[in-house]
């Protein structure tokens, strides 16, 4: 089991609002990821980081941004939310303590109205 914490779990916000989804892990892993999953659909990698001050875009283009100032935190920000951003956002991590297997957090469900 991985200790990955995501907040908020559920969020309903209005169009145009700025939101930040928090993700933290307590294992000191360098690699962290954000995946986006629409209901009943597959997961798509939108951002990843291999360490502090390292961020890369994933396979799916996203208007969100991420930062990695500390090893344990990998927040995702939407500057101006739109209904098209409604989705589930899943944070994941991997590292030597997990046998380099990727583990997911519980997810943050975002609804933009």
């Amino acid at each position: 089991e991985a200790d990955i914490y995501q907040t908020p779990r559920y969020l309903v916000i209005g169009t145009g609002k700025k939101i930040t989804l928090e993700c933290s892990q307590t294992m000191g892993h360098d690699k962290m990821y954000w995946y986006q999953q629409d209901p009943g659909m597959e997961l798509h990698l939108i951002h990843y980081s291999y360490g502090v001050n390292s961020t890369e875009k994933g396979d799916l283009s996203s208007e969100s941004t991420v930062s990695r100032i500390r090893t344990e935190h990998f927040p995702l920000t939407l500057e101006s939310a739109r209904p098209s951003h409604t989705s589930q956002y899943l944070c994941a991590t991997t590292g030597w303590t997990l046998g380099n297997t990727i583990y997911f957090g519980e997810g943050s469900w975002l609804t933009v109205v």
Partner: protein
Amino acid sequence: QQQVKQSPQSLIVQKGGISIINCAYENTAFDYFPWYQQFPGKGPALLIAIRPDVSEKKEGRFTISFNKSAKQFSLHIMDSQPGDSATYFCAASRAGSQGNLIFGKGTKLSVKP
């Protein structure tokens, strides 16, 4: 172009039966093939994974069969139970990018009592 194709989209199995989910891939650079199980409202949880150097891996009631020449792999769930009802995702990643998983579209499994 979908890099990992998963079938069937949904599956209904009687309790005690065998559930079989199939995946096919195109990219021969893939070298890590995990299966994830996801319950509603939860993040995906790693079920079992395989690398191309073996043709089969078994963990309890779950078995992965891997056919490198056909570029296919499948998940078999023996003695399926109602508690196995969930969505199953196959995935693949390239060497050195284990967290950058490419997911299939998922299979919704229902096990009837």
